[in-house]
């Protein structure tokens, strides 16, 4: 079974600074997908960024980027120029793809509560 570990329960940074959230995972699969989800106080789960394990290039989405180290099984999220609206819980998630039509289930880490300080 896959496991996802987020070792930072809470973090806080000043507005406009850069912050990196850590995530490690354990799997014997060679192909899989990794995701970061954001959960603001509204509790809506919002997909921030995704990475396909067979792609060496790190994914980026505007101010959000990842550092994917497949050999180390590490998948960290970097938020640049942090904004007050980035305040939220951030969850790292793992998914093993199916070989047939459809999706596999997500396994989540325990989350990191990020606070952006004005």
């Amino acid at each position, binding site marked *: 079974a896959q496991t996802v570990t987020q070792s930072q329960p809470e973090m806080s940074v000043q507005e406009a600074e850069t912050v990196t959230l850590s995530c490690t995972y354990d799997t014997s699969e060679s192909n899989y*997908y990794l*995701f970061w*989800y954001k959960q603001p106080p*509204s*509790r*809506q*789960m*919002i*997909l921030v960024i*995704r990475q*396909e394990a067979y792609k060496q290039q790190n994914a980026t989405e505007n101010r959000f980027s990842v550092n994917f180290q497949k050999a180390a099984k590490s998948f960290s999220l970097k938020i640049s120029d942090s904004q007050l609206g980035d305040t939220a819980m951030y*969850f790292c998630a793992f*998914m093993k*793809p*199916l*070989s*047939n*039509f*459809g*999706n*596999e*289930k*997500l*396994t*989540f*880490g*325990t*989350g990191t509560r990020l606070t952006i300080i004005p």
Partner: protein
Amino acid sequence: DARVTQTPRHKVTEMGQEVTMRCQPILGHNTVFWYRQTMMQGLELLAYFRNRAPLDDSGMPKDRFSAEMPDATLATLKIQPSEPRDSAVYFCASGPGQVGGKDGYTFGSGTRLTVV
């Protein structure tokens, strides 16, 4: 933007009562998930469906929980009888029928259940 709709948003009920939570997945999505979020356990998978057929409900207490998809536009999660330990936020999520699922899933806003 297409969205997953969950009702009700909040539910307070007395112990022993039946609770039904509903989810309308995004049109065209063939995979539907139910997750439960608590402070102690985090996000736990309860059940999931593909093309309305249940694939895995091993995370669900079978004696009191049941999940169904009566049609492609509706998924339901029922608890009967409810207990205080069932208090949590219940999320529904849906995904498109792509091989690999690289696009991830879209979550609803969740139902916050409080059992007193």
